[in-house]
């Protein structure tokens, strides 16, 4: 094989601590290397041309570029050698920047290491084979997991573009957290007024199939061709029949069911439609509280239902959908403040969370939009807001900023003043994070126009004294301890990843960080893609986000899906496993270990069995290769011989 080696200076990034000329001259002495040079910026247009020129001039059959990480520029150089007529897999990179020049200053040792890495790359290249992709049809249907505002936006954008959309929502209604909000910052427009029409759109678009009260059971397949099993959870109401008339709710005698939509303030009926604008407007029976389902004589709803939709015998069902792309938009949960013993650990009835306060403020909420405190229904006059509860707090394992609390506290304080002009609001804060458009102005307005008292410091303890609570905090600007007597305390509980986020990520085969937020492909340049092709992210499942950002990501993910669906066929990755039938002993161990079910039996004439890889299903992990005793199955581009060649170069 005729091999050319190109050593990149990367300006001074590499040449500063690596003698690139020496690396090139040593490389020239390696067997099969017929050309070697160093170049200022190999990835630049002239740099690529230099490679292409050398391929022609020296008849190169393989190229090694020693430069930055292949995770950075491998695709660039592959395209370059392909243009010059080589198969793009006849190319190897030696990472002498991230792994050499940037991590050490010893020029001699760096140069030695760079030479080694080039030798290893050349060694591997000798065993490279031209690989060819095949084409696969794309199933132009989209699965959106999560029906919050991000998911809704993504679904509507794609549906508008003519894409068939399947939306799966685990709650019985769509709208997510935004549906629970009263108003939105910094414009104070009504949450349900702006979200409501979008929710209706979802239910009315003919090319959107909505599965509410459903969860993802399993996902198999790959980009362009996923198979998804969806578990439709038991609702005890036949939704095809249910008209959402609400008669059952009115007559249901089990009135002490938990009101999840109102965050536990007040109670609901055991059969319930959580709010008037709910989409889908269908009833669900809460089995925990239903009399009939707990062995008592009842069945009132079944008798009253005009369309006979009640079905106490209902069981979960599984439906299968085939899609070509998936958007995860599973949103977030709120931090459980009961770990804060100093704030009463959830035992003080008038210490509530921000989302509970939203429900209190909402006209459709438990108190009809009148601000009252839960313990005795009294109108509060002294209201304390505490920020960073479960945010920026290492001691509870939540060191990150939730990003939205500063703003929603300002909004709630403003609304409080609107509702109760005589009341006083105090906000304990550490820093005010208001970087969005018109955000800081909004917080200033809370202070300047609405007289909200901002106190810079954390709260050490809240305790009951008589009818009120004592909020014992600090004003660090003054350097004093302060006490505020409060009627109501609102904790700005932080954002955490949605419960079950990790399990779903494992089904999707995407990564998530230590807090359960999904990892994007690149924090700056690929914010809605994941490392699993065909799976995209939208909204707070990727990290805490406010409504505008979530909507923007929903649209961004939708555009990614539509650019994928603009193609009828996609190229497959040829770096997959391949069975050498002559060596296969039909032990079946590869079939046993393959995480993707990508290997199956194949029968030759005479009934002889051999393993066979389905290249479109294989993801290229190589577990089969590591397992196969006679090494009959080889992962292309990472074969035993290729890895051994790299090791051999080091042992030499």
């Amino acid at each position, binding site marked *: 094989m005729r091999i050319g080696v190109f050593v990149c200076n990367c300006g001074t990034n590499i040449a500063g601590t690596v003698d690139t000329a020496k690396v090139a001259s040593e490389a020239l002495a390696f067997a099969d290397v017929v050309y070697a040079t160093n170049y200022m910026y190999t990835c630049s247009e002239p740099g690529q041309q230099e490679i292409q020129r050398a391929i022609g001039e020296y008849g190169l059959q393989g190229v090694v570029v020693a430069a930055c990480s292949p995770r950075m520029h491998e695709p660039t150089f592959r395209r370059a050698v392909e243009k010059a007529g080589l198969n793009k897999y006849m190319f190897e990179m030696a990472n002498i920047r991230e792994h050499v020049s940037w991590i050490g200053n010893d020029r001699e040792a760096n140069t030695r290491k760079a030479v080694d890495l080039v030798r290893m790359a050349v060694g591997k290249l000798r065993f490279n084979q031209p690989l060819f992709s095949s084409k696969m049809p794309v199933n132009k249907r989209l699965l959106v997991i999560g029906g919050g505002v991000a998911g809704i936006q993504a679904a509507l954008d794609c549906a508008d573009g003519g894409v068939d959309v399947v939306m799966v929502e685990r709650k019985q209604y769509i709208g997510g957290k935004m549906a629970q909000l009263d108003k939105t910052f910094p414009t104070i427009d009504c949450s349900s007024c702006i979200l409501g029409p979008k929710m209706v759109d979802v239910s009315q678009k003919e090319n959107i199939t909505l599965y509410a009260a459903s969860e993802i059971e399993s996902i198999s397949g790959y980009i362009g061709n996923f198979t998804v099993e969806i578990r439709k959870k038991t609702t005890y109401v036949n939704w095809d029949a249910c008209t959402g008339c609400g008669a059952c709710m009115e007559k249901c005698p089990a009135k002490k069911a938990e009101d999840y939509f109102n965050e536990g303030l007040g109670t609901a009926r055991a059969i319930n439609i959580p709010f008037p604008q709910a989409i889908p407007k269908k009833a669900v029976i809460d089995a925990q509280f239903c009399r009939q389902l707990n062995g008592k004589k009842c069945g009132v709803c079944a008798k009253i239902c005009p369309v006979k939709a009640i079905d106490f015998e209902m069981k979960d069902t599984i439906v299968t959908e085939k899609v070509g792309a998936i958007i995860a938009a599973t949103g977030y949960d709120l931090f459980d403040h009961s770990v804060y*013993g*100093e704030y*009463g*650990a959830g*035992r*003080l009835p008038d210490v509530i969370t921000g989302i509970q306060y939203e429900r209190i403020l909402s006209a459709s909420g438990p108190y009809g939009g009148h601000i009252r405190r839960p313990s005795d229904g009294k109108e509060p006059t002294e209201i304390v807001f505490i920020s960073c509860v479960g945010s920026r707090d290492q001691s509870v394992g939540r060191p990150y900023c939730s990003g939205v609390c500063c703003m929603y506290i300002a909004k709630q304080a403003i609304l409080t003043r609107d509702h109760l002009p005589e009341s006083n609001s105090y906000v304990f804060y550490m820093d005010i994070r208001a970087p969005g458009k018109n955000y800081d102005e909004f917080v200033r307005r809370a202070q300047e126009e609405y007289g909200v008292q901002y106190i810079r410091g954390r709260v050490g*303890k809240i*305790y*009951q*004294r*008589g*009818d009120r609570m*004592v909020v014992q905090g600090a004003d660090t600007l003054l350097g004093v301890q302060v006490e505020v007597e409060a009627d109501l305390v609102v904790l700005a509980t932080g954002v955490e990843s949605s419960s079950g986020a990790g399990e779903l990520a494992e089904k999707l085969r995407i990564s998530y960080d230590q807090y359960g937020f999904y990892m994007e492909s690149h924090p700056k340049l690929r914010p809605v893609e994941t490392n699993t092709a065909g799976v995209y992210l939208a909204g707070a499942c990727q990290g805490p986000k406010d409504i505008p950002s979530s909507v923007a990501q929903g649209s961004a993910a939708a555009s990614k899906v539509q650019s994928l669906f603009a193609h009828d066929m996609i190229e497959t990755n040829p770096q997959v496993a391949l069975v050498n039938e002559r060596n296969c002993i039909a032990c079946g161990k590869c079939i046993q270990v393959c995480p993707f079910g990508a290997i199956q039996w194949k029968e030759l004439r005479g009934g002889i069995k051999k393993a066979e890889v389905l290249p479109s299903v294989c993801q290229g992990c190589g577990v089969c290769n590591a397992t196969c005793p006679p090494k009959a199955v080889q992962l292309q581009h990472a074969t035993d011989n290729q890895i051994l060649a790299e090791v051999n170069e080091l042992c030499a």
Partner: protein
Amino acid sequence: MKRVAYYKGCSLEGLAAEYDRSTRMVCEAFGIELVEIPDWNCCGSTPAHSYDPLLSAALAGRNLAIAADNGCDMVMSPCPGCLKSLKGAQETCEDPAQRKAFVDLVGRDVDGLKTVSLLQLLYEEVGPQALQKAVRRPLTGHVLVPYYGCLLTRPAEKAKFDDPENPISMDRLIEATGATVPRDFPYKTECCGATYGVTRNDFVGKLSGRILDMSQGLGAEAIVVACPLCQQNLDMRQDQINKYSKSAFHLPVPYISQVIGLALGIEPKVLGLDKLCVPADILLEDRSGEDGQARQPGGVAAG
């Protein structure tokens, strides 16, 4: 019979002698054999620690070493201050950097021992259920506030017992005697003024004063404690507090061991109830006849 090394500490030999007496009585009643550490010495308390942590570790460690030499695997100290020193000694012993210096001073390692407070011993080795069964003279109808003090459960990583903000072990033990405990006494672990009784009398006036005030507000007849220092501040100095805050508190401050002892039917005098500065005779009233109803404690947090 459970055999536990007993490190009583200097206070229990002097001003808190009744804590010592009642502790022994209660443990005996539950079949716990207390083996007083022979020739024990002072743990050095805060003064030793703020002089040199190794001094503190060595002083406290010597006692642990004696206990270990006597074949005990558990050491109990009724004084949370002493317990902190004992645990500090164990920490020093576990620290690879200091282990040698420690062992050189003390003569052996002591990290294998379990060190507990009296409260932890009673809560974990006896427990509210067993206590409830053993009660002869229920304290039904009495409202008692448990005051744990700052060190008993804090810092949580070191104390490894109960909750640092809202401990409940003493609540449960008191309830087991039949008495009523107001819900969520907010000053359970707030500092009483600690050693400033001598040097900064006004601190105690302020800090212990508010504990007395809150307790009274919740309808308490007595404040139950598990620390000799807390007891001195709240009881012995109650007159000083009254003078400082122009108040007229008259709240008895018995030790948890005395309260349990009473419920077990042990003679008040044997428990040293008469040694308390504010007389605790009110606890001897038998209210079990009054429909078993507690006097309604005041405050909204009651119930």
